[in-house]
């Protein structure tokens, strides 16, 4: 029954725990819709057959509906609609509430690709590998415009918005390869902003992760990075702190607000900086990244252009980790920057 209806309605395979749940509501709703629109159509045809115009001068009786009938017109559809809503809303609450043992993956959308970073694990472009049978939470943000992360087989979708994090979770049930599509229009490459989720069996996934850590299978998704070899380490902020020491960032940048060779990182994120050419900029992810890659592009007024470029020294997730570390260095409780979506804290007590 499920399979017949699914094929009849052209629904893709059901590859997550939501999929069958959502589809059952789907069948219920669509079948009711079919029945109702057919019933209305048939009634109209029936009335046409019964009450054809006999003569051009025909008169008709004046009929007012009984109040009870009008009430039925309201109550019958309303009860159906509310029933749908109750079922659908419950599912959607579930969809918005990742379980506590979910595995986190950071997602960054940009024109026109998806980047995935596993905390303490490898990074990837356009390919997301996840184990089956285990909830996965995606923490997503965008570098430029709004994108939307969509995997039809999982029946999940979430907008990826610049300046804030959004989250989504799923529990893939069937190993296989599923297309990731961008569902929010984002420009010329919108339709080719596609990625792939590869759902692996739990043990295959573990193998892949350790292979990544050994640097064996890294050619597929990008060169190995320092992070790939290090033992998994806390969240991005912790990684960032460690990297900042390893790479020598903190030799010039203080983290406590004191003056040094470079601007202090304390409260750096969101600060307005005056540049040597007189422009004022707001320090955001873009500026921090640019300063690491091309330090001389925008020199803060009062500092000398002495910083080396880290363009070929840091990989994508390492940059992200350092950026996250800098963002975490805020001196007071006053909220700066735009409002964030869901909580950024990892769900497990890492």
């Amino acid at each position, binding site marked *: 029954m499920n399979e017949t209806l699914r094929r009849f*309605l052209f629904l*893709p395979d059901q590859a997550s725990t*939501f999929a069958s749940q*959502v589809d059952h*509501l*789907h069948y219920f*709703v669509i079948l*009711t819709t079919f029945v*109702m629109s057919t019933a*209305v*159509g048939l*009634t109209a045809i029936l*009335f*046409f057959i019964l*009450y054809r*115009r*006999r003569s051009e001068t*025909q*008169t*008709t009786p*004046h*009929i*007012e*509906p009984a109040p009870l009938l009008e009430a039925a*017109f*309201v109550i019958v*559809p*309303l009860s159906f*609609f509310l029933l*749908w*809503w109750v*079922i*659908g*809303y*419950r*599912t*959607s609450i579930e969809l918005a*509430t990742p379980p506590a043992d979910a595995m986190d993956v950071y997602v960054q959308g940009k024109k026109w690709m998806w980047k995935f970073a596993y905390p303490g694990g490898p990074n990837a472009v356009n390919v997301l590998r996840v184990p089956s049978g285990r909830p996965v939470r995606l923490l997503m943000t965008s570098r430029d*415009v709004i994108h*939307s992360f*969509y995997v*039809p*087989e999982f029946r999940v*979708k*979430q*907008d990826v*918005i610049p*300046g*804030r994090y959004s989250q989504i979770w799923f529990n893939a049930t069937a190993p296989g390869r599923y297309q990731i599509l961008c*569902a929010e229009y*984002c*420009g*010329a*490459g919108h*339709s080719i902003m596609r990625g792939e989720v590869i759902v692996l069996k739990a043990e295959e996934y573990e193998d892949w992760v350790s292979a990544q850590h050994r640097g064996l299978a890294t050619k597929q998704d990008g060169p190995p990075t320092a992070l790939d070899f290090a033992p998994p380490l806390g969240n991005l902020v912790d990684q960032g702190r460690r990297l900042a020491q390893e790479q020598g960032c903190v030799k010039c940048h203080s983290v406590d607000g004191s003056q040094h060779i470079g601007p202090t990182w304390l409260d750096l994120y969101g600060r307005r900086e005056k540049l040597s050419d007189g422009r004022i900029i707001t320090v*955001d992810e873009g500026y921090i990244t640019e300063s690491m890659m091309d330090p001389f592009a925008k020199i803060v007024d009062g500092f000398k252009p002495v910083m080396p470029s880290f363009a070929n020294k840091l990989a994508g997730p390492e940059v992200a980790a350092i950026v996250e570390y800098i963002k975490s260095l805020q001196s007071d409780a006053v909220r700066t*920057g*735009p*409002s964030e*979506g869901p909580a950024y804290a990892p769900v497990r007590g890492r």
Partner: protein
Amino acid sequence: MRQSEEDREKLGAPPAHESYLTDGTTVMSWLNTRDHKRVGVMFLVAVVFFLFLGGVFALAIRMKLLYPGPFLFDALTYNRLFTLHGVTMIFLFMIPAIPSAFGNFVLPLMIGARDVAFPRLNLASFYVYLAGAVLAVWAMVHGGADTGWTFYTPYSTTTPTMLFPLLLGVFIIGFSSIMTGINFIVTVHTLRAPGIGWMRVPLFVWGIYATSVIQVLATPVLGLTVLLVALERVLGFGIFDPARGGDPVLFQHFFWFYSHPAVYIMVLPAMGVISECVATFSRKNPFGYKAIAFSSLGIAFVGFFTWGHHLFVAGQSVFDNGVFGVLSMFVGIFTAVKVFNWVGTMYRGAISFKTPFAYICGFLFLLVFGGMTGVALATVALDVHWHDTYFVVAHFHFIMVGAVIMGFLAALHYWFPKMFGRTYHEGWGLVAASLIILGFNATFIPQFLLGNNGMPRRYYQYPEHFQALNVASTAGATLLGFGFIIIFIYLVIALRWGPRCEQNPWRSKGFEWLTPSPPPTHNFDKIPHITQDPHDYRTHAPSGVYTDV
């Protein structure tokens, strides 16, 4: 002719007057007219042109989608085309189509008024619309924009295409919408003929009235929103720019606060047309007149509190999702009440299957199916899968475009004799109606399935397994195109050579048929005193008598 003479004699009306069509035949007499009927006809010509333009864009899009890969033109052209299709169809065709063209023409006739309350404002509304349209078309010719008609930030604030003049055009057209809305509300309040109390106002007028309320209250917010985007593009104010602390999702709230009620701006007048046509062609009083009238107001009211259902996956809180979901269902309830009452109107009537009735049937199917899929979309969980896919595209083409097109064509055929005093070829009318209804379903039912299958909207290239349904959809669109061409041909022929008709060819008891067809310049030499409810088919007695006023 004989019939209308008899009618007039019975009414004690003076002999036929010069019709509004012949009262001044120079170009200036049209361009400088204060006559609501002429303004209505000018709007009609303009919206038909933009329907054609939007249709050409649509067909170009459908042709490209025959193949999954790059085909015919590049991605940027494709993105511009769907933007222009949306902007043209929504702002230049659907929003003014029924209220500004047919509303202008028949609303004063229906309430026994000699004109709308502010005739000069009415003409100004037309020229403001034209100015906005010219600006929008100019922007289209000089590069066009590629944001989609929704102008979502931050894409719209960063795209290098010609968005500014397009936004300005939309802003200006908003004024036209507001002017028409204010005019209609005041007209209905102050210019009803003696005997037309609030519970005798024809249902089409109720539909237009509810529409006007939305136009007046929602359009300023759109104006402000496009202004903010335009300023952001030119001056970089940063209201929606996350780099400056702005919130791009705030734009979506602002935008949908207008654009969701705007759906009802489009569909409520169509519902009004259907209410009139159903009564006329069933020769029955509207079943549940009050229910239909108040549900129009209900939709207008609740429509203001449902915009959040466009943001279910945009990071809105779970609580908001639930509230907006359940509020959206109430629109469904009001619509359901209308549908049941329209079908009820047919009960024990005397139904004659003329062209407008064919469109009623099409309308009912599209509205019920489109409406219920809308309620389905409001259940949040299903929307997560359907959001921004072709399912949504098909849904709003059914409920919004389908309803407006069916209502527009029903109105065009129903009031064609009223407007021009001639009749069209009934046989061709039915052929074209079947083609249109068939073509419409053939175009959009595959799109429902495409959405189920997971094809996102605004895709230039698509994975190959979506191709079969896309080809089916394009085939349907071609059928739809042929239907429109047939209508255009036989109506133009009818305009010039069609047989002249009597005053009331449908023998309708709608109040607008109390004047000659086409009506004289000032509609009524004497204002009729209405003595019956609209569409009272118990007797043949005319629904009004001419008083000395």
